[in-house]
């Protein structure tokens, strides 16, 4: 055990970023920093890094996220006002020292380990559905067989909220999706993405985010304008006719993407998870936010 401990002292600190307002460019600038590793899921993280301001309506989501980190866990508030009393606050540009400090912390779970609603016991199996499927046990809808929207077969449809801190979605975006396998059957916009300002729309940052979703992690130091990303098949990998190739090509040339997306409730149904995620990432955050905000109002 002592050998493991000695080796572990030289390890990178795995950090899960919860990105708030104006936090996207901040977090991207951290990706190449030695000593830490940004991870895609809170389960792999030791430290929760809240980057950018969040208002108090996100407290519950953040507490749930916090509870997903295995113990011991620590929190850092980077250019963010703390929503709970644990973890250091970092007002300046460099959170590394605070992350190291948080990596020694052992914060308690902030939410009780309970289902969101009590068990109600409706119907023969108690969950209120049909047979052993469907219903809303503990207040959460369970999968229920429904017609497949593509080929007329019947498949289990599952409804859940995704966001606001899922790393593959624009920060702040909350979608209520009904999925059959990885195909989106219906999509409702529950909350628009956070504002990221002009740094969030920078072509190198947008291209790097999209490439990372395709398994190419070359960071924001990507040599915009070089044919490297093209030679990796990044453009060919995207579905033709979706506009995604055109938008990624623009970013790779160093140009801004100024197209507006269609409302997500119309554009996402019928797409597979990966296509939907890439489609959302293929618009400038400011443009997507504007359309989603309008959609949320209507």
């Amino acid at each position, binding site marked *: 055990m002592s050998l*493991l401990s000695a080796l572990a002292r030289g390890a990178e600190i795995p950090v899960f970023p919860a990105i708030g307002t104006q936090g996207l460019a901040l977090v991207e600038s951290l990706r190449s920093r030695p000593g830490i590793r940004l991870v895609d899921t809170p389960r*792999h993280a030791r430290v929760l890094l809240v980057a950018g301001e969040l208002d108090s309506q996100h407290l519950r989501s953040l507490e749930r996220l916090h509870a997903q980190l295995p113990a011991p866990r620590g929190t850092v508030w980077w250019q963010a006002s703390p929503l709970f009393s644990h973890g250091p606050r970092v007002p300046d540009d460099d959170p590394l020292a605070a992350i190291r400090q948080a990596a020694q912390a052992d914060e308690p779970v902030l939410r009780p380990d309970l289902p969101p609603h009590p068990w109600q016991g409706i119907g023969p199996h108690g969950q209120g559905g049909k047979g052993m499927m469907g219903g809303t046990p503990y207040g959460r809808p369970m999968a229920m067989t429904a017609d497949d929207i593509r080929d007329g077969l019947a498949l289990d449809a599952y409804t859940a909220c995704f966001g606001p801190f899922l790393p593959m979605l624009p920060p702040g975006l909350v979608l209520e999706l009904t999925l059959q396998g990885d195909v989106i059957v219906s999509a409702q916009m529950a909350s628009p993405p956070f504002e990221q300002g002009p740094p969030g729309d920078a072509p190198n940052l947008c291209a790097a985010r999209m490439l990372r979703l395709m398994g190419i992690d070359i960071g924001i130091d990507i040599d915009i304008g070089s044919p490297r990303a093209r030679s990796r098949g990044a453009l060919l990998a995207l*579905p033709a006719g979706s506009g995604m190739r055109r938008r990624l090509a623009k970013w790779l040339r160093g140009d801004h993407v100024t197209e507006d997306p269609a409302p997500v409730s119309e554009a996402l149904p019928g797409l597979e998870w990966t296509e939907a995620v890439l489609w959302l990432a293929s618009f400038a955050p400011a443009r997507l936010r504007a359309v989603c905000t309008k959609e949320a109002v209507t």
Partner: protein
Amino acid sequence: MILAAFSLLVALPALIWAAAVFDRVGTGRGATVLGPLCNGAALMLRPNTSTEAPDALNRLLAPGWYLALALIGLSVVPLAPGIVASELSTGLVLWGACEALTVVVVFLHGWSPNSPLPLIGAYRYVAIGLPAMLLSMFVLIAAALPAQSLSVVEVVEAQRGLWNVIRQPLGLPLFMGLGLAVTLRGPLDYADGAELAGGTSAEESGPALALWQFARLAMLVAFSAMAASVFLGGYLGPGLPGPVWLLVKTVAVMAATVAAGRWFARTPPARMLTFLWVILLPLSFANLALVGLEVLP
């Protein structure tokens, strides 16, 4: 047999370390050599996580099964003339079974935490894994034809005149596609990708995650040793002892697989399915037909 099994068990940790080092080369993260060991140690000291209503037994066993499949697959690779852990006349079939069961194990890994993103990773991997394994079967049958045997030992010996990589130029590139799929890498990583926040591994932490990553690297070693034996002549080569040649070729295939995994973009799964069924599988048929014509008396 005992000597071969012992040699494999001694060499495997070092090769897995080498594979992890390859994964860090060029990432600009520093600590290329010691970094994987330190990160692995830190992961071992973190706790496993619990989820709501998991399939606990399969969640516990999936990483172990994956590692076991890598070890069983590796056991049919001959280290030198007459030195092989499992001297089977059907070694290629055993390797094929390990490939096919990898699909099952990855599915169980995604199914067992009872969580949506891992489950999507699991389903997607099965869809992609099936044509990838089929492709590998045709490629391996083509490699077995000149040897007139399904024994890996015989396939290596049949390359004394000419390596299969030259005799069947399509074989190794197609087999590399299978390698990316069974080791969950880059363009064929439909199980654990970033667009699913880690996919089948999204809910894992601590020793369970460490073992899964260790098993992935062990599978990379097993695949590389198999590719080196079936297409690059295995232990055959001038001057150096056979095991050294096998080691050199295995490390070269490992490096190439890691590089290919990092280089190429991953398409949405529907496009990859079309590519596999419509382009790569017919290419593997063509490869088999050409080899069949070549070995006609």
